[in-house]
């Protein structure tokens, strides 16, 4: 798993590249736990190259969701592959998290 961050004003665009399993999701947890991230109001997660997610990866997002919500930080996923989105849907997480089609849509929702 490779994670890159691109910062634009109050927005972090986090690009996930690779697979999030019980081994690699630790890296994502470290990134999302960084106190620096709380300075931003929008976290846009580019999932184009996220090829796989297991419960460990989902668990990392689940565990940070409330903290971001309480801090009024918007967490938005975009460019998600169908097979990965399906895993979110199996647990109903697509109803609790914001998953949109592409970057333009992510920006529009983030600015609402």
């Amino acid at each position, binding site marked *: 798993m490779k994670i890159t961050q691109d910062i634009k004003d109050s927005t972090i665009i986090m690009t996930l590249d690779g*697979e999030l*399993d*019980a*081994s690699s999701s630790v890296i994502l*947890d470290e990134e999302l736990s960084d106190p620096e991230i709380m300075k931003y109001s929008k976290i846009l997660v580019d999932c184009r190259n996220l090829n*796989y997610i*297991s*419960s*460990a990866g*989902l*668990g*990392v997002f*689940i*565990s*940070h*969701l*409330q*903290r971001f919500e309480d801090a009024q930080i918007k967490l938005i996923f975009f460019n998600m592959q*169908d*097979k*990965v989105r*399906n*895993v979110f849907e*199996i*647990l*109903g*997480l697509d109803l*609790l998290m914001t998953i949109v089609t592409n970057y333009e849509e992510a920006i529009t929702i983030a600015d609402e």
Partner: protein
Amino acid sequence: MNNSIKVSCTKKNLKLIRDFVTDYLEQLALSDVLMNQIVLAVDEICANLIIHANNEDPSKYIYLTITEPKNAVQFEITDNGVAFQSTNYKEPDILEHVRIGKKGGVGIALVKRIMDKVEFSSKDGSNACLLYKKIK
């Protein structure tokens, strides 16, 4: 075609297991979504066995065998670690997990929702998990 693999209990080997299952399933020409679901279910069980049942001890092993009953695919995963207490299993309350910021505990729910049959058994210190999925 090789249908079984022996893997030592480290999390790094989960990728190896997923690649093995993917390679095996290629011949069945499943959809991307279904293929991913099946690989995920096997990965979740193996992750639990490696982390919880065998405490990530690389001197311990898990064994995976894939078979093809009629119109289905079946996985048997065995180990000699601490047996999974399936009677203690409770469906997770995802909203509660979000509220308290809980990281784990949704893997078996995924497996149960994906597979048509999930069975755990133990005998003489050896445990087996059987996963069955209809594919036609």
